[in-house]
Structure formats: C-alpha cells, structure tokens
C-alpha cells in the first residue's frame, strides 16, 4: 500500500471498493501497516495452512520418538537432573506401552498409536523430534505456541498469516477455527485465536461444524423475502444518511458490509452442509464412524479440506475429549494418568480422519500448496507421573509437518536417549513459525505491526528459518 495515500483518498478512489473494504475493514484502524508486504517476500511454497492442534500435549515417546532405553531402565529412577514438573509427582522411568515400527519407503518410525497415518502417510511426513517450548503449563503454552507470547493480547499465527497474505475468498473469513461435538477452545480461551493488535478482520471465526448455527448469528431469523425487504428498507435509509454524512467512507463501508453479511448467510451453510461429498469420501474420513468423537473430528478434517479449497488461509482443528486421565475438553491429550488408554483413545479419534485428510488433499493436488502442521503445546515426560501417567515436557518433543514444500518422509533433530531434552538441532516455536512464514513466502523479520510503541512480530525478536525442513 502506498502510505502517501490517505485513508479517505483511498476509499474515495476505490470505485469497486466495497468488497475490499468490507472485508479488509481497515477503517480507522490504528497503527500503521508498513510491516505488511504488498507482495510475498519470497516465492511461496504453500498458500494455506491446516493446523492440527493436539491440545493437552501428545507424548512424543509414544508416537514419533522411539526410545528403547526406557524399556531397559523401566521402573528405575530417572538417571538425569529433572526440571520442575507441573505436578511434582515424579515417578520412575516409564517405557512406552506402544510399539514402534518403520513405515513406508522412508522407513519413518511411527508407533502403533497411529496405524492409518503410518500405513498411508509415512512418506508424506516431516517429523521434527527436537521441538521445544518455553512453558510447561497449558494456557501459557497454548498462547506461546499460537502467538509467540505466553499471555493473551497478541495475534494468533493465523491472524498474522492473513495480515501478511490477505484473503482469497470474499465470503469467508481467512482464519477459521473448527470445532465439533463438545470441543472447546484450549486452555486460555478463544483469545488464542484473536487478532491481538492486528485489525479485527484477521481474527479467527470459529465454525461449529455440526451445530445448527455454525457461526453465531449466521442464520436469518425469518424468511428470506422478509430479510431482503428489510435490507432494501435499510439500504434506502442509509443512502439518505450517507448523503447527509458527506459520504463518509466509514458509513459507506458499513452500508456495504451488509451485503457481505448477507452473502455469508448463504456461504457458511453451503460450506458445512458438505454438499457434493461422495459416500467414498465420507467413508474415507470416517464421517459416519460409530465412535462419536471420531466422527466429529472427521467432519472437521473434511471441512478443513473444503475450506482450503475455498481459499481460506489458515484452518485450525480442535480435538475432542475422551475424558481419560485429566484430559478434559480444553486439553484432551493431557494424560497425567492412564496414559496408555487415554492416548489410544485420542489417537483412535484422529488417526483415520487425519490420514484421510492427507490422502484426500494429495489426491486433489492440494497437498503441495497446503502446509499441514500437527503439534501440541508440549510433549510428555519419559518418567511416570503417579503410576501410569506422564507429566508435561517442553524440553524436547515431536511435531510433524506435511505438504506445502516440506521434506517428506524425513526426521529432523533428536532428543537424548531418554527422550527428555533435545540433543540435536533444537527447534523453538519461533523457528517453527519463521519456517512456516517462509514457506508461505513471508519473511518473519519483515512481517511486523506497530503497537504500543514497538514493532511486533509473530517471532518476537527470535526465530530462524529451518532450511533443512524445506524440500
């Protein structure tokens, strides 16, 4: 944007302005957008992001980071200095109850927790075994993972990406969080998906995939003819008023906003209605699975594909609780006790739907331009909490990426032999987002926004692009 054109002038010039204005909503938003690129900084490898957030913290030791030493030391005290844990109920070395095997041409090691992902997608995954976080508690950890800061008030990654790239769909928000069943926002609340200090149109819209009203107030309360008549009446009144208000651009934009809202009333039900999806697709995702949580998560996965097809930049999915071992709605993977049963149930919920999503995206040629991120806010301890749970471990854990220009079928980094701390190639949350932004064609150091006297970034003052993750 040319900074020398004033807001008024720009609005005045935009003869076709309405669609742009209604969605960009940059009316009288404070701060300057000098940090917003007019074009991508680099050639983008991906256009969209699907963020499979495993809230509560998946155990890396039981999924993507096999540690045979744990079996040998089973039941013994941890032979390492321990950091403070969240519950301070540290037990002894706790080997994984799951079995690991090599899969696909790449020979990627995946445990028996994720049989479908292992069978169908091993060669698509880029597993990072050296992920770290700065926080070992859920809410702060969730904020840190989403925004780069451990408290509310900062823009979520999805908001930053929309700010950086703009929207590609006039009728849908560019940042969508999907929920279904009794899924809720992770600990920390909906502020995790907020725009922070960025203009409000970059915040996430939460779509409840299986609710009668998937977005608040999206359903007209009367027949369409009645609403059209009301809108016509309102439009007439507004036309008079806009004239009296000297064609103030804010007023005119607010007038036009009603047309966007009207269109969204149709676009959202079309989206969540899953019209046009075949029985084979439903079957692939497990949409009609008898296990209700799995069917609900499958619906999110299918919707995620439909959203990226429609140009939505950033889609985040929400796991549902299986109510095992401290895993409640905001933190379903949080098995402080009963880890084996809890992780098995959680994995069963997401395994087939996620495998289906990757398969489907690939089949439609969308995986190349869609970056899929699978991660929780931290991993879990190699020693037990109580008798059969694991506590939080932010000092080394696994996440994976797929599609969107990452090296498929590879492993990056390593934890120590106990799986407790990173031993090689530490990756921080800042590094992860720096890399994600890079794949989207954005330089994380130049994606900035002035707020409170400071130019903020998603990566704060840190972050390195991890070139080795990029194909």
């Amino acid at each position, binding site marked *: 944007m040319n900074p020398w054109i004033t807001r008024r002038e720009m609005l005045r010039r935009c003869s076709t302005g309405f669609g742009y204005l209604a969605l960009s909503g940059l009316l009288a938003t404070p701060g300057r957008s000098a940090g917003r690129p007019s074009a991508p900084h680099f050639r983008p490898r991906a256009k969209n992001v699907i963020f499979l957030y495993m809230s509560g913290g998946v155990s890396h030791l039981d999924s993507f980071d096999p540690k045979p030493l744990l079996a040998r030391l089973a039941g013994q005290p941890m032979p390492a200095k321990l950091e403070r844990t*969240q519950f301070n109920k540290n037990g002894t070395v706790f080997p994984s109850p799951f079995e690991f095997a090599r899969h696909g041409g790449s020979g990627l090691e995946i445990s028996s927790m994720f049989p479908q992902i292992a069978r169908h997608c091993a060669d698509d995954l880029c597993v990072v075994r050296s992920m770290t976080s700065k926080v070992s508690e859920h809410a702060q950890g969730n904020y840190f993972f989403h925004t780069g800061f451990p408290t509310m008030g900062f823009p979520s990654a999805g908001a930053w990406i929309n700010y950086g790239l703009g929207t590609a769909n006039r009728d849908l928000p560019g940042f969508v969080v999907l929920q279904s069943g009794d899924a809720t926002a992770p600990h920390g609340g909906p502020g995790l998906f*907020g725009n922070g200090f960025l203009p*409000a149109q970059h915040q996430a819209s939460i779509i409840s995939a299986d609710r009668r009203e998937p977005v*608040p107030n999206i359903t007209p309360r009367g027949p369409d003819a009645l609403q059209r008549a009301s809108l016509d009446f309102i439009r007439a*009144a507004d036309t008079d008023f806009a004239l009296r208000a000297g064609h103030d651009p804010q007023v005119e934009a*607010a007038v036009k906003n009603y047309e966007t809202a009207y269109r969204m009333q149709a676009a959202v039900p079309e989206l969540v209605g899953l019209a046009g999806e075949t029985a084979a697709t439903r079957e692939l995702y497990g949409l009609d699975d008898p296990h209700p949580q799995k069917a609900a998560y499958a619906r999110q996965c299918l919707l995620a594909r439909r959203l990226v097809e429609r140009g939505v930049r950033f889609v985040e999915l929400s796991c549902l609780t299986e109510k095992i071992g401290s895993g409640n709605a905001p933190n379903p993977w949080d098995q402080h006790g009963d880890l084996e049963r809890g992780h098995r149930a959680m994995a069963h919920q997401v395994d087939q739907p996620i495998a289906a999503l990757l398969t489907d995206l690939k089949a439609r040629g969308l995986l190349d331009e869609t970056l899929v991120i699978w991660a929780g806010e931290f991993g879990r301890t190699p020693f037990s909490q109580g008798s059969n749970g694991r506590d939080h471990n932010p000092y080394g854990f696994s996440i994976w990426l797929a599609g969107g220009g990452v090296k498929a079928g590879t492993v990056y980094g390593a934890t120590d032999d106990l799986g407790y701390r990173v031993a090689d190639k530490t990756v921080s949350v800042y590094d992860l987002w720096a890399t994600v932004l890079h794949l989207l064609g954005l330089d994380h150091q130049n994606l900035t926004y002035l707020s409170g006297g400071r130019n903020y970034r998603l990566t704060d003052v840190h972050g390195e692009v991890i070139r080795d993750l990029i194909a």
Partner: protein
Amino acid sequence: MRATFLRVPPRVAILLAACALVTPGLAAPAALAPADAEFFESRIRPVLAQDCYECHRTGGKMKAGLALDHRAALLKGGDTGPAIIPGDPKQSLLLQAIRHEHDDLAMPKAGAKLDAAVIADFERWVARGAPDPRDAPPTEAQVAADTDWPAVMARRKAWWSFQPIRQVAPPPGPATHPVDRFLDAKITTAGLAAAPRADAAALHRRLSFALTGLPPDVADLTTELSPAPFTARVDALLASPRFGERWARHWMDWVRYADSHGSEGDPLIPNAWRYRDYLIRALNADVPYDQLILEHLAGDRLPQPRLNAALGLNESALGVAQLRMVLHGFAPTDALEELVRFTDDQINTVSKAFLALTLSCARCHDHKFDPLSQRDFTAWHGIFSSTAPAQLAVDAPDPAEPALRASLRQTKSQLRAALAEAWLADADALPARLTTPDAALNKSIAAAKSAESALHPFYLLAQGATPAAALEPWRNQLDGIARHHGRTFPYRWDLSRVDDTSSWRRDGPRMGTASAAGDFAVAAEGDRVVVGVYPAGLYSHLDSTKDRGLLLSPRVHLAEKYDLWLRLAGEGGAFARYVVQNYPRDGTVYPVQKIAGIGPRWIKQPLGYWQGDQIHIEFSTASDQPVLANPAATRSWIGVSEVLLVRAGELGPFEAWPFAAPLLAACGEPTTTDDLAAGFAAALRLSVRVWREERATDGDAELLDQFLRAGLLRNQPAQLPAVAPVLAAWRAQETALRIPTRAPGVIETFAADAPLFARGDHRQPGELVPRRFLEAIDATPYQVTDSGRLALARDLVRPDNPLTARVIVNRVWHHLFGRGLVATPDNFGRMGETPSHPELLDWLATWFVEHRWSIKALVRLLVTSDAWQHASSPPPGALERDPDNRLLSHASVRRLEAEAIRDALLAVSGALQINEMFGPPVLGATPRRSVYLRVKRNDLDPFLTAFDAPVPAAPTGRRDVTNVPAQSLALLNDPFVRQLAEQWAARLAADPTLAAPTDRIRVLYTGAFARPPTAEELARALAFLRDAEHSRASAAPWADLAHALFNAKEFIFLP
C-alpha cells in the same frame, strides 16, 4: 503521488543551488575546518552512532553490506551502491533512506523517522561535501562513548513531550472561545473556513452520547440548542449520574479493566467491580484528576484519604485495584518469571495510562527510541514488587466502632466470669462423672484413642491399663516438648511473642498484638457459647468472626530444601498457605490449605520443589485472599501460634499437647480411677481459677479447650442460666459490628530494590537499582522505607512533570472529538504521533491544572467550543487540503462504541434498567448498562467484542473502529436485538395515544434518530409496514420496522 513527493522542496532546492557554488569534492581526509568538525561532532556523529551503528558497523551486522562508521565505508557504500555522494543530497542513498523516499528503504528500520531538523542537518552536511573526520572504524571505546546512555538520553530528551509545558495565550481572532481561537488560526492559514453549526438532531445526539453514552431523552429534544440553552443542556448532562457511567468506561479502557485474571481457569478477581463503581462515583463527583492518580498508585497510603460517609467507604483505597487487573498464568513452574511478567503488566499500565510512555519497552534493554532506561524500568519494578497482592479493607473508619468493641470486650469479660462460676461447679461434679460415665461420655471416651485427646487416659483405663500407665503417653511427651523448645530451626516464628510478630505484616482488628493465653472466642450464633479457648498467639476472631485477619511473613529465600510447619486453628474456609514470588493463585504445585474447621494443630507443607525461590507464608480469613477469596463468606477465622521451617528430611516439631502438663501435675501418681478422676477435677479447678483471673498458661487454655470439646464443661446456653443473658447481650452488640468491605489491592510488605536483569533475563540478576521516578525527569532515589508508591504517585502529578496533564487533556479530547490532538493517546514517545496543535495542547494542560484538574470542567470547556459543534459536512477545500481533518474544520463522523450501541438499543426500546447502578457484574442478557457487564477475559461479551470493545490485555486509549460482517450479522440476527425490537414495538402498541401509524412511526424515528421522519421516510415506512402485513405475512410488522431502524447506519453513527 510519488512524483509529487519526489519533487524537491523549494527550500532544499535553494540549499542545493547555494552549495553548488562551494564545489564539493571528495570529503577531505585532512583536518576539517573547525566549523565542519564542530558540525559533524555535534549533529552528525551522535545520530550515526546512536541510530545506525547497531546494524551498520564494520565487523558488526553490516546489514546490506553497509557500514556507516567511517568515511571510506560511506563512500564505498553497500550492496546498492555508495551511501552518500558528497555534494549531492538528492542522489545520496543515505538521505533517500532517512527521508523515507522508498517504501523498502526507510531508515532507521523499525524506528521512528528522524526529526525533520536532523534530516536537514544531514542534507546540509552532504551538501557541504560530507566532511567526515573518521579515517578508520571506531574502537569499541569510541562507540561506547558515542552511544553511552547519558549521551543518548540527552538527545532523546529533546523530544516534544519531555519539554516543559509552555505558557501560551490563544492567538488573536474573532472567536470568543479560546479553543476556537487556536483552531481557527490554523484553519484560516490553510485557506479554509470552518463548517457551520450542526443541526439540532445531530447536536442533541452528539452531546448526549459524548457525555452520557446514551441517546438523548425524547423529552429533551424540544430544547432549542442556541448557545445558552446548549450550555444549560451540557450542565444538566454533566450532572447526570449517566456521565460517570460513560466516562468510567473510557477510564476502564485506559487501565485494561477486567473481572478475571485470564489463563487456565480464568479466575475472577474478587470484588473487582468495586473499582468500577469507584470510578463512576469519582467521575460523577468530579474528584480532581491529580487526586485520582494519587489514589490509583497509593490510595491506601494517603495520610488523608477521601472518605465516603454515606457508603462508609474509604474511596481512596479503591483506586489501587487497578494494580490488580493483571493477567496471571496458571501454576507457572517458573514463579519468578511470572512475578516479573505481572509486575511488567502493572508498569505498562501505569506508564501508558498516566504518562503515555512505553516504559515496558525498556524491560530487557534501554528503550530503543525514548529517554527511558532499563534502570527506569527496574526502579519501578522495585516499587511494585515491594508489595503483595491482597484484598484491602476499604471501610471508612467508623467513629462508633471503638466504643462498640470496648463494650463487646467488657461483656466478654462478664461472660468469662459467669462461665468460670459454672465451670467450677462442673469441676466439682467431674469426679462422679468420670468414674460413672453416662452414655454420652462413654462414647467420647471410646473415641479418645489418641493421646491428643484429654480423655485418653480413661480410654486406656477402659482398655485395661493401670491408672499410672494411663498417664504414660503424656509423661513421655514432656521431654519432647522440652526438646522442641530447645531446638534451633532455620526459621522459627513464635507468634505469641512481640519480637517475632513484629516482622510480619498483620492486618485486621485483632492481628495487631498477640493475645494472652486463655483468650477465647464467643460464638455469634448457634447452640454454643464458646468457640474455643486458645494458647497465646494471633487469632482473628477474639472480638468477632466477622473480623478479618491477614498475616504475611517476611520473605524467605529458600536456600535449601525445607519443610514448612504451621501450628494453626481456623474455621469457615480460612486460608493458610505459602506464596511463591507473590503468585496469588493456587493449583498443582501451589498448594493452599482451606480450613473448614480445626483446633490448634501442626500442618506440614514440603517446600523442596521451590528451592531457590522466594516465598512468604500467608494466613487469612475466608474473604481475604487476593484471588481465592470467597466474597460470599461473612464469618471465618484464623489463628496461628507458631511457624517453622525445618530442613527437609529432619524431624518436624514435636506434636505437643500442652494441656497434659497441668493434668499430670494435678494427678500425681494415681493408683485408682478415683485418684485419676480427682486429679482431673483438681487440674480443671486450678485452670478455671487462673483463667478467671486472666493468668492462664497455654496449658490451662488448651486444657479448657479440650474439656469443652470432650463435653466435660457446659457450653450450651440452655445449660448455663447465668451465662445465657450475658451471651444474649454480647450477641446483640456483635450484630452491630460491620462486615468489612473488601476490594482488590496491594499491601506494603517487603520493601526492597529490584536487581537489573541482564538482557531482561530474570535468572541473571545484577546490581540493585534504587526505587525512584524516571531519570529523564528526576533520578533521585526515594528516601522511603515503604515501596515508594506514594512517592511515585506524587511524582506523577508534580508540576514539572510535562506529561501527566498533557496526557489526560489529550485523552478527553480524543473521546470528545474522535481523535486526540496527539493521535496516539497511549504513546507520547518517538513512535507516537506529534501533536497537531501543540500550543493548544499546552494551553489546555495549563488550563486544566488551573481548574483544579476537573474533568467535568474540561469536558464543559471543550463541548462548548464552536469546533465541537460543527456540522460534519466538510467545508469547500477541506477534503483536498486537510483530508484527515486534523485541522478540525468540521466534525468527524464517528461510529458509536460497542457499549453505546448496546445501551442505545436498550434505551430506545425501553428495556434499559437505567436506575440500576453499581454492584457485581451481570451478563449480557441483563438489560443494564454495558459498563456493568462482566469482563471475563476468556469469555468476553460477544456483542461488545464484535463492535471493538477492547481485549483487556493492555491499556487502550484509542479503540479500533472496524467494519466486519459480525457487526451486521449481530444487528440483523442476534435474538437479543430482535427481542428488543419486539419490546419497542409492543410498547408503542400499548400506548393508546399512538393509534395512528404515522404517529407511531414518528415516535420510532424520534427515538432512534432524535428527529422526526421526513415525508419520504414516512411514506417509505408505511409502505414497508403495508408490504410486511400483506405480501410477506409478517407476524410482527412493527417489530420488523423497529428492527430495521436499529440496522440503519444513522442509529450507530454520529454525524
């Protein structure tokens, strides 16, 4: 646009022409002319060193391959060519960069554009051939000298907002209002004429919303709005209680008001709403702004607090609640990081809200742009972290209370005498009772399996022990008691001793001094007389269980792994805990004892996990924890006699039963059950006697307490005919005692300077920085023994502080005109905007202080200006010459704030409970003003959020005004909005005077827009109704019409 921008300004062109005659060549390597050298050293070198070297230094970052630290490097340049072409400022890349001629080459990067004067200096310097004495890259020492903090700060202090407020007079002009004279001068200079006055409807709405946040009362619309009645209308609105509700909400934005702390669990901040009510009362009472600032920092420390006789409140103490609106994480394993972060939250709020400075940006290093050092941040960190989060008692002193307490205590001593008589009789009857126990006593004996029960010997007897053997467990423990008292512990506080209690922070009527052994508490209700008889210590309830008790130990650095032992008693949900680094919540590794009801006993808490951290130990009554308080609890109590820290793994204190000593002494060597029973009776008699004479020992007190629990002493009013009337009298007096009013706050505890954290890393503490104000204004350390909050508060309002008055005047201007004279009301630093009318800002700041810092007077002054009353239609030429209307030649159209939109919907429809003021927060479905809605951080009201109500994470002086579909969808489809439309329609339908549709339409339009419909609008509305009824078969055409008017832009915009 670009072409226009690149056109060389005439002034520079002249400069260039002049310089061309000087024949500039390469910068001379030889000695510079003295004038050139002086110019370079004073104007050029400091800027290069302070603003450029960080990224462009030889051997440093050398971004874009460019160094600017010596002459040859400038001439050689970087990746894009030479930085300067001596003699040619226009073609010199460096100058293009600092003039921001190219979007992607705007320097200094991520910083504010350099001052115009500095850029002019560089132009002059390059035009003169860029004479530069720097033959080689500077040494570290040279760079350090050029960039050392005093040098940097001296330069930065020249920024406008740090300059003294100037005494200025309004410029001459025909306008009578001084504000208009300032504004008109610039409007005229720009060749513009001001817009005419707005029409009556626009003015009525503008005034009513600006002052009260509500649409005008239809009854007031008949008022002519020529100047005199307008002023009368202003005064009426300023006097309305709605004024405080409106402006309190603005203020709540400035201090990021919230009812909860956020994060996992998102706990409520108990009594936060009392602060909101305080703001409303203060603004309605027009309490001077400087007074409110004192109260916001140190209202609990004022020598003469502002008391509210009607409500019995110490208003001043409520101001400090803003320090508690911080975010708190959940169960952080790094407690110190949490402390630093939430203290930073306090510093951020205070510095932005009252000084419009971003002191938080100096947490890890000196400020990048402003004259604020990391030492400044640390000085404030010391001030705020010298307190602890708390619930404060905010009652005004009650003149009747001392007499009431005196008579309560007098009645209590009568009770003691009456009880003693009765209990001596019980002692006489005791041997018979013990030797031939009735069923109830037998049950008690059978339950006395533990030696901590006074009936334990009789339990052992029943088990077949000899009388002598029955006393053995007690004899054995006498040694243990002696050992316990002889032992040394890493930390030990005997809270019956003045020496030990004096280091604790104590709050509550009975927490001042330890009670003597044998003091007792009377039951205020229920079927008992005495709650308990206690050993010496600190007990909150010796007058009443309504009283609050709060006890904080000194801070302890946990150098080793310790166990904490507490000997305490309590009831009613009182709290005992240790607090790590001031973290006030509980959860996982932050255990808290909530005491339902226990007698004096030892409780252990392991502290090993927190080795290396600082803790303090805290006891409180149920309503007096900063976060965990239960505001609904009216009666509880806590009592403590001893606190110990023992090395982990070592023996704890000996679990002693002091009552055993007098019993053993009296029993001697019993051989029969009768002997034992007689000994018990003798011991009891002795203890009652000394208790009656107020000479009891801890052993006597605990003996009486044990015998009460065992049912060996009468304690029911019905059993005690001589006691009952005295008890009744005591209870009657006790009802008159107030339940304390609590509000969030901080209390003075552990005054200490904070260490400078290397690069902001709290694990790397450095030297201590004295607590003090900002060095840019006054670097003198505070000579105080407390935290320094009051001293800081006074510095905020001292006359030579150039910021405070300007900041508040600008905030008020922003809320009235839609944009501040400084457009960034929270930032008067380099990254903020400069004032559009600096003289006016200074004149207003001076005027405001002279008018006793009166917000109402300031509002009155501003809204009575012609400028504020202009129409919004731009006068000819204004859009071209002043597109952003910074000159205020006309009014700027504004959208209503979220709260005003919701309140207007409620008001217009007749649903608003307008006279319901104050009290605990309500949810959105309650038809009260939006200022009373709960602000729960993880569950913000969706309607208000859609219309840009701020997320309460940091001060928000200027809200976003966005235009997102959620707004249209809410007004179109939100059932709450629809319901209000129906309510409005129903109200009209019920009004017999409004039978004619045209009359009803008139009422609708007047209610919504403060004006009657035009003929065309009338016809349109009638057609809409007709269609609704006939073609669309609407069930409620009038509600449809009302709903449509809610959706008209005129409803939410002020022209």
